[in-house]
């Protein structure tokens, strides 16, 4: 997809995610909106997969380690044809398979997550197995920045560096917020790039809400061999909806009718100038 088409697609996914959160009256919308541009690049430009054969052994994999930010992810999987789009209306409804976290009963989902600090280990194991099998599959995973306080993340970072997993593309949705406030006030994460470099990663720090920057950074990382890759996505929590941007209260929340209409109007305005 061209950059402009990817931007339009990201806007469409944002609208769908807002609609799901409004209908369900629940959802982790802030981190969903910050991460949608990255997910759009992965699914509509970078990853090789077959939605009609989700278990195709040579597919690239994506693991959503920050599993609570699932609304954009489900919207993309449905849009890519893994399951019917109408099913998105069942998000968080009684007896749905579209629960508030990724679950492998949903076609296209690679790993059940929810509790934080699990996705990177799963991605590392998958990346190692793909290397042992001499496949060219790439393994992508997205972590939250608040998630980085989990010690298991650092065990996995150490493992990735030790085994030179250059088919591993980890990314951190660095929106600087978590449920209780600013990440640096809750638990200092910086200097994050240096920490990742010290663990043996090739890193890129980029505007994670800018499609062109994401594409360019991935392109640069793809030329590096012998090292796992880390994208530090500098993002805005709530990106695209003015009253949600940078607002910690929208980590998790439900929208009133007025808020929903305002959010949709907001997104439409931004899309119209693309």
């Amino acid at each position, binding site marked *: 997809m061209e950059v402009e088409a990817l931007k339009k697609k990201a806007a469409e996914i944002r609208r769908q995610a807002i609609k799901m959160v409004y209908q369900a009256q629940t959802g982790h919308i802030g981190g969903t909106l910050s991460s949608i541009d990255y997910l759009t690049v992965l699914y509509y430009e970078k990853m090789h997969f077959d939605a009609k054969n989700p278990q195709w052994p040579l597919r690239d994999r994506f693991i959503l380690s920050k599993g609570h930010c699932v609304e954009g992810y489900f919207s993309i999987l449905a849009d890519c044809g893994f399951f019917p789009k109408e099913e998105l209306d069942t998000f968080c409804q009684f007896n749905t398979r579209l629960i508030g976290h990724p679950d492998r009963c949903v076609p296209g989902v690679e790993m059940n997550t929810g509790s934080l600090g*699990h996705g990177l*280990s799963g*991605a590392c*194991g998958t990346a190692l197995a793909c290397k042992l099998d001499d496949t060219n599959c790439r393994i992508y995973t997205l972590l939250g920045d608040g998630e980085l306080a989990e010690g*298991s993340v650092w065990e*996995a970072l150490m493992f990735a560096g030790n085994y030179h997993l250059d088919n591993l593309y980890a990314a951190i949705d660095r929106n600087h917020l978590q449920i209780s406030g600013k990440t640096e006030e809750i638990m200092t994460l910086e200097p994050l790039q240096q920490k990742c470099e010290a663990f043996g990663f090739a890193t890129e720090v980029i505007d994670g809400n800018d499609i062109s920057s994401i594409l360019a950074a991935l392109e640069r990382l793809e030329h590096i061999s012998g090292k796992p890759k880390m994208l530090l996505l500098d993002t805005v929590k709530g990106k695209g909806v003015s009253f949600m941007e940078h607002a910690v209260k929208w980590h998790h929340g439900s929208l009133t009718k007025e808020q929903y209409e305002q959010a949709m109007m907001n997104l439409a305005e931004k899309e119209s100038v693309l």
Partner: protein
Amino acid sequence: MNTPCRKAFTEKLLELAQKDKTIMAVATDSRGSVTLNDFAQLLPEQFVEVGIAEQNAVGIGSGIASCGKTVFVCSPSPFLSGRSYEQVKIDAVYNQRNVKLVGVSGGVSYGTLGFSHHSLQDISVLRTLPGLTVLVPCDAVQTKALTCYMAETEGPMYMRMGRNAVEQVYSENETFTVGKAKQLCDGTDLTLLAMGELVWPCKEAARLLAREGIYARVLDMFSIKPFDTEAVVNAAKETRRLVTVEEHSILGGLGGAVCEVTAQHYPVPVKVIGAPDGHIVAGESPEVFQYYGWTPQGIADKVKDWISRIH
């Protein structure tokens, strides 16, 4: 010949992995304690060292298994069942990965090393995870058979073994069905239900009791999950008194599993013999076994005392 179960396990695993290249072993700086040195040397491409990181080991193992491999994550059971409990719950069980969690030095194998190194809660915490098979072999023959079962059968599993050389309970070529208890001898007065290293002492205790006219059935409950409910109910109906014997806390282990069955299906008196819910005496495991009466004579004495009091 007395062989430690872990040695029987690693010999069998090596044999299976030489034939099947999709079998992998993941270690947590544990190749010595698990006796995986030969495996690591002979099959380096099937061996993954994770370092002292049990959480990551289960996560990595589950990730490897997602690519169609059969992964044995081998680590001392106190850490595998405790430190990585959530990875077992989510990465292995919730994700339904083909991961075999092999806990060595279970129970009080590390008896002098203190509470941190005892694994006396592993069965109670792991047997409640839906879909996780839980196995506790009692000797080398059974360990080898269960290792083959784990390699051949899809799904997450936990197998717990002790560190010591154990008496051989079964003759070579004995077969086992997961989900079915193994009856070692029959009796009419009570049933001794045991797992792991305490199966052999129960078998011997039954002989001692028989000399005094007390006839005990002995069941090897190596398959903690799936659990042989039918064997427990039949034992309750036919022998009227049940005594569970385990190298595990008296809370939530084999005793708990038996009581769940009898209380709901055929209530009879049950005596639970195991580790107290409190301080555990320090000592090499034979000393600890002696202290708590986990010996043929100790078990026979407890049974006689209990029977005399419940009449």
